């Protein structure tokens, strides 16, 4: 019986011909676009994480601490919630840095009698501090330490980051919504097509007393086969596109987004895509049931 049902499904598929091909390609397209969006989003996510690492908050110190005081201070600064990385910048480091900023005019510095700059600690905030409230809280705590003269850097980097994340979220929602709609339409269209092609056949089958499973199962199987083929094709398309594009994209990415590596979907993501395709196809086949 199973052999009979599967062979019926393949027979239907062959007969549907160009239409089955269309359905498969539309599923491929929807899934490939979904996958491509997934890849881009996760890479942008990496980029955002990297940018967060680059945001610096500078805590200016009243005096240059000695080694012991420094160690204790650093420990307390690290304990503040929202602080991820810390780098100590001594007065000498700061002067060197100023010379770098001045470039051609660095010689000016040498005309100054003594080093006028303060020692400071540069902080990297953690993801915990990415809400404006958490960031304000962290800045307040740092400013309250006795050794600290002033904290430079405000909450606006956090706002920027969260705006970026909101933007990405909105794009994701929009793209996801459109693709979802397209996939549903695809499945509906393909199903309607197959149903239409089979309408008389289904009626005749029922009239000669064919069991329901023989009437419907091939439709379901056919849908699943289409979905599976579509998904496998989508994975192939994504893989090839990645192989071709990654070498060209990587330098660009590192130039514009500061991201060294352009990563592909993890195996679990690929499995999810294939599963989604099969489900989509099965759904199409199943809708056959609702359709009559």
């Amino acid at each position, binding site marked *: *019986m199973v052999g*009979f049902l599967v062979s019926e499904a393949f027979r239907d598929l062959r*007969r549907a011909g160009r239409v089955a091909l269309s359905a498969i390609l539309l599923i491929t397209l929807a899934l490939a676009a979904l996958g491509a969006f997934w890849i881009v989003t996760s890479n942008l996510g990496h980029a955002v994480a990297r940018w967060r690492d680059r945001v610096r908050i500078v805590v200016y110190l009243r005096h240059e601490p000695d080694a012991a005081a420094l160690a204790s201070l650093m420990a307390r600064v690290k304990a503040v919630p929202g602080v991820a990385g810390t780098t100590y910048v001594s007065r000498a480091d700061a002067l060197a840095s100023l010379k770098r900023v001045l470039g051609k005019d660095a010689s000016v510095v040498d005309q100054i009698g003594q080093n006028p700059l303060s020692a400071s600690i540069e902080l990297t905030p953690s993801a915990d501090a990415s809400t404006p409230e958490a960031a304000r809280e962290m800045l307040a705590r740092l400013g309250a330490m006795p050794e600290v003269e002033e904290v430079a850097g405000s909450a606006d980097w956090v706002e920027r980051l969260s705006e970026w994340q909101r933007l990405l979220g909105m794009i994701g929602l929009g793209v996801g919504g459109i693709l979802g709609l397209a996939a549903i339409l695809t499945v509906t269209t393909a199903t309607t097509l197959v149903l239409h092609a089979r309408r*008389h*056949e289904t009626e*005749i*089958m*029922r*009239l*000669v*007393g*064919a*069991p*329901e499973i*023989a009437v419907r199962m091939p439709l379901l199987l056919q849908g699943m086969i289409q979905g599976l083929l579509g998904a496998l094709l989508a994975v192939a398309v994504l893989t090839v596109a990645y192989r071709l594009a990654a070498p060209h994209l990587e330098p660009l990415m590192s130039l514009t987004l500061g991201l060294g590596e352009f990563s592909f979907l993890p195996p679990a993501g690929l499995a999810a895509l294939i599963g989604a395709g099969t489900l989509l196809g099965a759904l199409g086949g199943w809708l056959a049931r609702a359709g009559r």
Partner: protein
Amino acid sequence: MIELQGVWKTFSVGPVRVHALSDVSFRISRGEFVILTGTSGAGKTTLLRVLYGAERPTEGEVEVLGRDVPSLGRSEVAALRRSLGVVFQDAKLLPARTVYDNIAFVLRALGTPRSQITARVFDALRKVGLSSRAQAYPAQLSQGEAQRAALARAIVRKPPILLADEPTGNLDEGMATEIHDVIKDIWTSGTTVILATHQAGLAAVLKRRTLVLERGRLIKDQG
């Protein structure tokens, strides 16, 4: 075996109501051979459709093989139909399958062992004189050939009841007689037969019980 009690079937086409069956009652016992006749539009096809559950009567009771047909669910209707051989007036062959596949299909869907299928299909085709056209598709058949293929499909399962709707409508007399002989053979082997036909003369020739419909009413039941 088959029993109808006060069966009505009314169709509405826009404002017009057509009484395809009006208060039809009769009873057919196991092993009978019944001819159902009446002019075009009298309700013959509708009556057969009620028997195999393709049409739900507007009113009345229908019992076939001990089942209350109008109350059956989809899978029970399918089971009932598997006990019936039906020759549809318009053949209703699956257009994408050859004559052989059309007939083998019903056996396969029932799980008949592969080894028996070919022999049984060709046996049925031989009975209706169509074995040479086994590989043709329905569109490649003449109307008479399609009708014979439909009969082969109906008898291949050796059903307890055969419902034949105008099985010789497109056949010349010689071939019609052959087909009637095939149907009689099946009847002789124990199948209950209802044969719908517009040829009023056939009743006289076959000398069997005859039901006559006129505008949906059963006006005669004799033989």
